[in-house]
């Protein structure tokens, strides 16, 4: 089967098989990605992150249903879902349980769900996640949700990968809201306060609101940390002075309350990105960080292939004996053939 051609026709088996090849980093996987790449760039990528158990999978389930069954007059779009869970650092195995909450989507040929493990990547995103997104994108899934467990770096990673980032909070997480709010404010396009049926919603929303207010009075808001730099560099080319202030949306994912409002906000954010010129900027940053990550891995691999393991060990032991510094070790390793 020519995987790439079948994927462009939307063949589900081909999609699934190429995803596996990409995850396993095979030659076939790379060739497949190469072939489909010109057909990517169509989908709206929505990152969904937040602490464990806040209801991310349940929300994605509801949102996907909503996008599949829009109000009259709107076309339903095809929905892809990639749910990332951490691999066990001890065994390398993983339990991927997000599908449990997505039962409602079973049997709908317009939905494709794939679970993936982080496989040794730090943070919440696997090395192959962007490849899997490209496959769904090329196969014609117009809306793609990427669910990741949020913890520190993971949240920043997902924001770099997605056009629209939802950060999911829930009442009753205690002071966690305080602890992660700095991260949230940098990356959230929409704050979702899920489990609004639970006690403590009011105080959770108050806490989020005051944190947001604090941030917007401190600085002119910038959605992503990178933009601060970018804006200074080419201020004159900023296409619009429109700003987006992240709304807080209450939801109850177990019964669907608030989901329509959330879906509308997501659509609104997509329009904002398109109209403000922000979409193009995010696309560029997104692809740039993909290229950079790949470049980093490739350079490292090339260097490793050339490096003699013995020399590496020798230099390392000189470092541990405090004979040479770490900086010096790197200098020596970089031009490995000059030393004995």
């Amino acid at each position: 089967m020519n995987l790439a051609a079948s994927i462009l026709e939307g063949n589900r088996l081909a999609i699934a098989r190429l995803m596996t090849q990409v995850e396993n980093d095979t030659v076939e996987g790379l060739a497949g990605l190469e072939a489909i790449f010109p057909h990517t760039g169509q989908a709206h990528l929505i990152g969904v992150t937040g602490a464990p158990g806040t209801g991310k999978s349940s929300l994605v389930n509801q949102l996907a249903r909503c996008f599949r069954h829009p109000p009259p007059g709107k076309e339903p779009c095809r929905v892809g879902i990639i749910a990332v869970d951490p691999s066990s650092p001890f065994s390398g195995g993983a339990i991927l349980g997000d599908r449990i909450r997505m039962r409602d989507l079973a049997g709908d040929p317009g939905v494709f769900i794939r679970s993936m493990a982080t496989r040794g990547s730090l943070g919440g995103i696997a090395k192959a996640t962007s490849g899997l997104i490209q496959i769904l994108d090329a196969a014609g899934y117009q809306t793609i949700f990427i669910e990741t467990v949020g913890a520190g770096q993971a949240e920043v990673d997902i924001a770099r990968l997605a056009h629209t980032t939802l950060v999911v909070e829930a009442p009753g997480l205690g002071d966690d809201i305080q602890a992660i709010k700095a991260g949230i404010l940098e990356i959230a396009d929409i704050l979702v306060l899920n489990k609004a049926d639970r006690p403590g919603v009011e105080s959770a929303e108050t806490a989020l609101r005051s944190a947001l207010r604090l941030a917007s009075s401190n600085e002119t808001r910038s959605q992503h940390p990178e933009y601060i730099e970018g804006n200074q560099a080419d201020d004159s080319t900023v296409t619009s002075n429109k700003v987006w202030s992240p709304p807080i949306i209450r939801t109850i994912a177990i019964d669907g309350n608030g989901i329509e409002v959330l879906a509308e906000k997501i659509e609104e954010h997509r329009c904002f990105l398109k109209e403000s010129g922000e979409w193009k900027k995010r696309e560029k940053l997104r692809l740039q960080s993909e290229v950079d990550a790949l470049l980093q891995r490739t350079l490292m691999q090339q260097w490793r292939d050339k490096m003699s393991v013995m020399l590496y060990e020798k230099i390392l032991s000189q470092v541990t004996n405090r004979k040479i510094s770490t900086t010096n070790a790197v200098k020596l390793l970089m031009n490995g053939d000059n030393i004995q």
Partner: protein
Amino acid sequence: MTEKKIRVLVAKPGLDGHDRGAKVVARALRDAGMEVIYTGLRQTPEMIAEAALQEDVDVVGLSILSGAHMALAPKVLELLKTNQQEHVRVFIGGIIPDEDIQALKDMGVVGVYGPGTTTEEIIGDIRKAISGRLN
């Protein structure tokens, strides 16, 4: 190339209540380095086959306590075949009468495990059953 991982779908078809056994097995498989897609209770054969396709798994493990194995297993096998997934190895755990075990194996089920089976045994059998496909 990164190391290939064995991917296993663990599903609980039928209407019987608890999935304690299935969860124990899922954890053991994870600890053996496999990626386990856990789909939870009350899965229909259609849901199982579709998930197996999307997740491109090597193995499907069914936990069946309801006694409906002679109806559910052939249906899952048939749907996997319809989906061009006949390479997927199917294992069943549960309370299966001796006289049904051979019948299930004749249908194409690779392993049938009753209460008291060690997880080591299951892990060993899975590795053996798919060793041909991993490289």
